[in-house]
Structures are given as structure tokens and as C-alpha cells.
């Protein structure tokens, strides 16, 4: 099914429920991910680029050449130069510094909203798949209905009603991303729960929570994490789209979508205002897609071992 399912000696010898067992499980997960990475080299490229962006975002206050909010009317709408590498916007603010600071917002919103969606969605899918029957039908039917609704429209309306703040944008994006995670977690759960070791655990009197959390979850985690990277790409795109429509974190805070919105107004004479933040979004989303896509190919059992 999934890569870390391959038996590892340490996991087999450690007693379930002990710290050693947990470490061994984590080790198996790590080894599985490593194997998946090596199977498809483009994943490394994606990871590398994403890591650089994350470091740049973390270090933004120290490496940004200017203050992202510092206005300088005398130097407004300047094309890229030695002083302002990527030019200045309509308020004379340095675009490079704003992109670096905007990365913090995009990445934070993407990371938090997808973590929330991943945890809630996986829990829902795990429970639905594990118990099966009527619980499964009702839960998954609800998820399908939610899935059918265009996520950007749902996000738009939630943010419009709650107000555009970082917290509300995270809520809106997380809401739209829960159903796909529930779907992704449910499918392997149905397969894994039929395994002998789950039956063994059940006959030993393990609780449902212990079986689901300790024995099924580690096996479905790789698939869920891979989807996490793909959905984080989506989350960053949705956040930028909301900001472009005018429902992003309020100005003057720098956000990529907001910068493109402002730049779009003067695209005829100062194209760099919209161009550079566009490239920034594209690079991050592409890197995350490369990462997730390569990993998915590697762990997808249908495609493994072919070609």
C-alpha cells in the first residue's frame, strides 16, 4: 500500500505502545519518505526551492534591503535599479522587501490552514473508513457535497462575512481543504484496517483510538503528507486570489496577491509592480507542486515498478 509499510526489524522487535516502537515507526516513515524522494529527483528540486523560500521568509526582517512599509514619494514607480533591485511601487516602497515580507504571510497562511485541514480532514476520513457502514456513508456524502462547491467562492463568502484578517482567511481556506483530506485518508484506511495486525490488536483488546492512531495512522500518513504539499500550493494560490479580489490581509501589509492587485492598476506603464510578485507566487506554487507530484508518483502503488 504505502512505502513505510515495508517491515522494519526494529519496529517488529519493539513492543507496541512503547517509546521505542514510536521511534521505530517514525524511522520507518522517514525511511519511506527518503525512498520516495530518491525515486523521483524532481522532488528534491521542489524541496530545495521551497526551503530557500522559507529561509528567505524567516530572515526577511534582516535580509530585506528596505522597510516594506517605508514610503518615499520622490522615488515612486522606479524601475529596477541598483538601489531598488525590483523597483518601487506607487508609494515608493521597495518591491523586493515587500515580496520578502509578503512571503511570510503567504507561507504562514498556507502552512497553518493546511495543517488545520490535514488534522481535521484526516481524523474525519480515518473515523469514516475505520467504522465503515452508515457512519461512512453519512460522513463521506457530506464531504462530497462540500467538495462540490467551488472552493474560491466559498472562501470569498466566508472571508467577506467574517472580515479579512489572517485568522479568518485561514479558517476559510482550511474549511475548503478539509473534504479532500477526508477522502485521501479514508481510502487507504479501508485497506489497512483489514490487515492481520489490526485484527491481532483488536483481539488483544486495544481501543479503537489506539488502533486508529497507533496502527492505521502511521500507514496512511505518507499519502496524507504528500497531499499536504499539493494542497499547500493550492492554499497559497487561493490566498493570493482572495487578496487580488480585495479580500486579503488589509493594506498596507505586504501580500503577494495584494501587490499584484495594486500593480495591475498601473500595468500599462510600470509592469514590474505586478510582474515580480506574480513570479514569486509562481515559483513557490510550482516548487510545492514539483515536491508533492514527485512524491505522489513514488508512493502511488499503481504506478510503482512500471516503466
Amino acid at each position, binding site marked *: 500500500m504505502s512505502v513505510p509499510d515495508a517491515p522494519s526489524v526494529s519496529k517488529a522487535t519493539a513492543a507496541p505502545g512503547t517509546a521505542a516502537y514510536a521511534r521505530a515507526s517514525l524511522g520507518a516513515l522517514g525511511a519511506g519518505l527518503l525512498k520516495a524522494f530518491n525515486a523521483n529527483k524532481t522532488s528534491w528540486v521542489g524541496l530545495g526551492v521551497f526551503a530557500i523560500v522559507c529561509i528567505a521568509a524567516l530572515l526577511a526582517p534582516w535580509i530585506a534591503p528596505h522597510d516594506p512599509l517605508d514610503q518615499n514619494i520622490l522615488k515612486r514607480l522606479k524601475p529596477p535599479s541598483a538601489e531598488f533591485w525590483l523597483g518601487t511601487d506607487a508609494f515608493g516602497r521597495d518591491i523586493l522587501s515587500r515580496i520578502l515580507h509578503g512571503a511570510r504571510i503567504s507561507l504562514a497562511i498556507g502552512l497553518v490552514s493546511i495543517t488545520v485541514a490535514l488534522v481535521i480532514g484526516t481524523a474525519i476520513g480515518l473515523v469514516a473508513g475505520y467504522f465503515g457502514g452508515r457512519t461512512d456513508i453519512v460522513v463521506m456524502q457530506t464531504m*462530497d457535497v462540500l467538495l462540490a462547491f467551488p472552493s474560491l467562492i466559498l472562501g*470569498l463568502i466566508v472571508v467577506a462575512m467574517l472580515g479579512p484578517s489572517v485568522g479568518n482567511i485561514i479558517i476559510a481556506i482550511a474549511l475548503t481543504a478539509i473534504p479532500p483530506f477526508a477522502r485521501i485518508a479514508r481510502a487507504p484506511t479501508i485497506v489497512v484496517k483489514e490487515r492481520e495486525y489490526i485484527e491481532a490488536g483488536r483481539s488483544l483488546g486495544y481501543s479503537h483510538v489506539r488502533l486508529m492512531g497507533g496502527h492505521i495512522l502511521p500507514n496512511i500518513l505518507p499519502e496524507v503528507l504528500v497531499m499536504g504539499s499539493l494542497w499547500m500550493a493550492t492554499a497559497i494560490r487561493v490566498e*493570493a486570489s482572495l487578496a487580488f479580489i*480585495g479580500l486579503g490581509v488589509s493594506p498596507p501589509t505586504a501580500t503577494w496577491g495584494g501587490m499584484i492587485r495594486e500593480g*495591475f492598476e498601473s500595468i500599462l506603464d510600470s509592469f514590474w509592480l505586478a510582474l515580480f510578485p506574480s513570479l514569486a507566487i509562481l515559483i513557490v506554487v510550482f516548487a510545492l507542486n514539483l515536491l508533492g507530484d514527485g512524491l505522489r508518483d513514488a508512493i502511488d502503488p499503481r504506478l510503482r515498478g512500471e516503466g
Partner: protein
Amino acid sequence: MSGFVLRRVGFACITLLAVLTIVFFIVRILPGDPAMVILGDQASQQAIDSLRARLGLDQPLPVQYVQFMAGVFAGDWGTSLVSGRPVIGEILKVLPATLELTLAALVLGAAVGIPLGVWSAIRRNSVPDYVIRLVSLLGLSFPAFVSAVLLLFAFAIELRWFPVMSSGRGTTLGERLSDLALPAINLGLIMAAYITRVARSAMLEVLGQDYVRTAKAKGIAYATIIRRHCLRNTMIPVVTVVGLYLGILIGNSVLTEIVFNRPGLGRLIVGALNQRDYPMLQGMMVIYTLLVVVVNLGTDLTYGLIDPRIKYS
């Protein structure tokens, strides 16, 4: 066959009711009294009360629910707070422009995506395959507004091949097509990226099937195997996934319409958001729900047409 159709229609009706219920509650469950939001903090209690009565918000929730559902099916979707005209009329006025755009994008996406995906799968791990995979991945990394801004900049502003503003109201066929071209290319290329990937993985799966190996063993020409044995089976997941991507298509059409300043549901919803036109927002959600449910039903039925086995299941 008729049993299959009836079952799907029945299921679509249940989904429709469920989503409409969600819409009803989303609009009412979110914090903030709409009347207060519309009128601002300074409004008098009297003004707020009268607006609440006008919106029907003074009624108990179950009464509101029945009124809402009855209204949806009777074609009474309330009155726009901004224009004072019926919501349904405003929506129906711009709906053709959006449908025209999304359909054109879908056709373009399928025309580009399916052949590319199939080719990529047949030539697996060759240079064209790698190029197609990378380019399609790049394509779906584009937020629709970013690609729209780039297209607008390149083809409308620099090259001047197309109008910068597409009115969507061109009278002659030529005018309409040139209005539609850039927005449809923008949406269509993103759709093509998604469809290429689905077509590729579907084709790869079909190529691994036993009946393909049998056909090869019988000495049938490879092109014939692809055409007669594989393509139709590849279409099943493609059609399903295109239905699933409708949500993405609709979201992207909103962004595309904004960038190209094209009339349609996208501009209507943004206008309604900015002006807090609450009955209009609710109406927009209803129309999106209807669109999604109808397309999903269409997808299901097409699925039955492509794959005769489905009818008997």
C-alpha cells in the same frame, strides 16, 4: 438505462437540497447581523429593524428556511439591495457570458489536454513526456489571475492582437470571438494542464491492463490498440475528473472575468461583496450550486454513455 438515469437524477436532487441547506445556514450562521453590516454601526435601531423585516430576517429560522426553499424553486430569489431589481434577473442577464467563457475553456482544455496526455503516456519516460509533465505542472501552478495579467500584458497591450477590455457584448460573430479569445485561452490553458495530467495517468493505467497485453500478443498494430482498446477506457476518468474540476473552473472564471473586465457572474459576485448586497450573494450561491449539481449530473450520465457496464451496476 432508465433506472440508472432516475437514480442519478434522484441523487442530484438530494445533493441540491443538501447544498441549498448549507447555503442557507452559511449566510445566517456567520457572525454579524447582515442588516447591521449593510447599514453600518451608526444606523438607528429603527432602520435596522425595517431592513431586517425587508430581508425576512425577523422571522423564526424554520419559517425563513421554508421561505428560502420555496423562493428558490419558484424563481423568487429576493431583490438586490443595490439595484432594487430581482436577483434572478440580474444573474440570468450575465449568466450567458460566463457559460460562454467556461464552455469555450472546457472545449479548448479538452482539445489540447487529451491528445497531449495520451501522447505523453504512450511515450512514457521520453523527452516529450518529461516536457509535457513539467509544462502541465507549471500550468496548474498559475493562479488564474496571474496568467490572465500576463496574457493581457503580452497579447493585448504589447502585441495589440486582442482588445484590452472585452465587453462581451459584441454584436458580430467576429467581435464576440475576439472578446472571448484571451479570457478563454487563459481559462482553457489552465484546464488543459489539469486534463493533460488526468489523461496521462488514465492512459498509463489502461496500458497496463491485461487486455492490452492480449491485444499486443495477437499482433494487432499498436496504433489500433491505442485507438480501439485504450482511448475509450481512458475517457472515463477524464470525464469524471473534468466534472470534479468544475469548481476550479468556476473559481478561475471569477478571476479571469475580473482581470479582463468581462461581464459575468465573477464581476457580479465581487460587486455584491463590495456593496454587501446580501440577497445577491445568496442568489449567487444558489446559482453556483445549481450549476455544480447540473454539471455533476451531466458528468454521471456521460459516464454511463461512455461505459456501458455502468448502466447495469
